[in-house]
């Protein structure tokens, strides 16, 4: 195996391939590295302890595609933490795979549950973070809730760098709107949701956070009480791989793993397994092993890593925030429904996938 690697100096100029996750919360600590040290074949040495990694807020790595193309490094699944549609739509590339669901899928999963809960023919108002994911999320919400019979009053962009949403929230027409979608992620989401509650918007409208993560829930605390959303993974998902991971993680770090921790570990293993199947690190071979691969071992039920757009098709957990007094360490949501994969998603010729052109293997 060592030989194959050495033959491949073109793509690996050094004994380490670096995968980078950019986080905006802390530009100084910009990079988190997952190192695949291939001297020890499948040893996964998470340079910075991934369990400590909380993508405190907007964690977008749609940019990784470009690292990938230029560096010829395979970016796999969950490393792409962005949920934006474009990532595996118009921006898709051969070298990138995505495990997490995109905004289309989270809207598809949310629409039936939320309309079922709040009723038909309602009108909704949206605020969204003005960047790739936020735009994508609000578009998806509009599409699938309109399809479900609701109508949009307005959708307003909030610029990045905003931590005080009071001016935007004060514009929400509380008499007209029935539901408010806050398409903010991470810390932004925690701030906008808390501020909305503080403003008493929940007295007049129902609030939905389309995408949750744990740091957001932790920072928003009691504000998430009863608020619907989707989450990448949660330790409460009850199946063999999930429970196994939760247990192993707890044994090692003495706390309940977050969705991101699960993603990091699961994807590292996916890559390692693909390398083993391929018998080489040579990226085109590894990529072929990953494409259309069927698996059921990371706790989200049976999945397919689709060859046409490199998007995993999998179940999406719809969750609801717990009241503050029921929240415990690492437990912030109740799982309302684990929407199975055949109820969501789209064909290779529809939706974002229709715009995807993966490009060459080499």
């Amino acid at each position: 195996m060592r030989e194959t690697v050495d033959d491949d100096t073109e793509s690996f100029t050094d004994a380490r391939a670096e995968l980078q996750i950019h986080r905006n919360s802390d530009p100084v600590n910009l990079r988190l590295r997952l190192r695949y040290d291939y001297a020890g074949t499948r040893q996964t040495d998470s340079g910075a302890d991934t369990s400590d990694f909380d993508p405190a807020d907007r964690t977008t790595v749609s940019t990784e595609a470009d690292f990938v193309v230029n560096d010829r490094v395979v970016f796999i699944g969950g490393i792409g933490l962005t949920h934006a549609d474009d990532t595996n739509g118009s921006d898709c590339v051969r070298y990138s795979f995505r495990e997490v669901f995109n905004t289309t899928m989270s809207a598809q999963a949310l629409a039936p549950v939320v309309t079922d809960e709040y009723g038909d023919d309602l009108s909704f108002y949206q605020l969204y973070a003005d960047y790739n994911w936020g735009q994508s999320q609000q578009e998806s919400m509009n599409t699938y809730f309109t399809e479900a019979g609701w109508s949009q009053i307005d959708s307003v962009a909030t610029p990045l760098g905003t931590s005080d949403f009071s001016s935007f929230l004060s514009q929400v027409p509380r008499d007209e709107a029935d539901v408010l979608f806050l398409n903010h992620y991470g810390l932004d989401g925690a701030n906008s949701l808390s501020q909305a509650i503080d403003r008493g918007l929940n007295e007049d409208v129902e609030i939905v956070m389309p995408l949750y993560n744990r740091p957001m829930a932790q920072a928003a605390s009691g504000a998430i009480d009863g608020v619907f959303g989707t989450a990448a993974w949660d330790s409460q998902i009850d199946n063999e791989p999930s429970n196994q991971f939760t247990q192993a993680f707890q044994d090692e770090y003495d706390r309940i793993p977050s969705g991101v921790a699960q993603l990091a570990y699961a994807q590292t293993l996916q890559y390692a397994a693909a390398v083993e199947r391929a018998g080489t690190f040579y990226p085109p071979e590894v990529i072929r092993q990953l494409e259309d691969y069927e698996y059921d071992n990371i706790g989200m039920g049976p999945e397919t890593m689709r060859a046409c757009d490199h998007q995993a098709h999998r179940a999406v957990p719809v969750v609801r925030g717990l009241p503050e007094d029921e929240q415990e360490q690492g437990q912030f949501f109740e799982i309302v429904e684990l929407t199975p994969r055949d109820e969501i998603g789209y064909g290779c010729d529809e939706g974002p996938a229709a715009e995807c052109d993966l490009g060459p293997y080499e």
Partner: protein
Amino acid sequence: MSDEPTETADAAEDGGAVVERTRRRFPSWSRAVESEWFVVGATTVAVALFPWLFARAPVVSDLLNGYQDLASLILIWGIFAMGFNLLLGYTGLLSFGHAAFWGGAAYAAGLFSTQVSSSPLLIVAAGTVFAALLAWVLGFVALRRGGIYFAILTLAFGQMMYYMALSPLSGITNGENGYTDVEVGQLFGSFHLRYPVPGLDWLLGTWQYVFVGAITVLCVALAYRVLNSPYGMVFRAIRENEQRAEFVGLNVWRYKLMAFIISGSLAGVAGSLFTIHGSYVPLESLYWTTSGEVVIMAVLGGVGSLFGPILGAGLYLYVENITSGIRELTVPLTDVVLLDGFGAYWHLILGLVFVAVIVLFPRGIWGLFRDVAAGIRRLGGGRR
């Protein structure tokens, strides 16, 4: 301090005395050492050996745990820190907005690569020209104030550019995702930067390193020449005593602006190389913490010396990228764990070392080395 009464000190005479003293301090051998050829030659050798020592040499590289890519990155940040230091170390102006030149050039280089030409040399030229023009404009405005106001004005301009790139200009810059469409072509149309150098890849690694290294040597030569020209003398005079420099008829403001432009241009060279290196421009390259990072590098390494900031850049990136990966700090050669989760402390350690340097060794680590070396030389001389 500048409280000396002008009535007693004749500035021109004093300036002469400094030169005189400097000359006397260096005997002919030392003067040869300090000569431009020696500096450039030594830099070239050091740059050539660096990636091998760092990433591939037996024993040394295993101890260092370095890798090729980091070697180029260290040189790139080294150029940035050296340029920053031309301002702080030689004119005493502390800018907290150098991210504007680094990041501005990085974006300019990135846009240039997609819109005009993907030739690495032209990309660097474009980024540098942009940074120089930007430095001219910002310097023109910011240099109206000194001290704390200068620091805050530069900070404000830097932040303004960050937020411009983040929001109003996101159509061009791609906002918070950073600029991703960078296209890097082949050097002189024939060398792919990602390819190893035939026959010399054990030493230098890739063409990219050769490219970055050559530009580093050029920048060192340029900076050395500037500092040893009349300009450099004036810069130092301004740092020592601005009023006195003004008194002998120097247009201090113009020299400061020149220093600012040279400094910003070097930051621009580095920023353009950063774009080529990563084929990507992160938005954070404009954020004020980037300015803060280069401040730390320069001060850590040693302001007021040419190589100190490069050393500082290396140290900073090393700690950030290698030390931060150490999970357990153990007693050397044993398994005794001193500190678990050691890597998480890297930023704190840098902060503490930074504070210690300011309090204890204002000339930085390079200055400390020189003091120690001088001490040893003196000891040796004493024994003889």
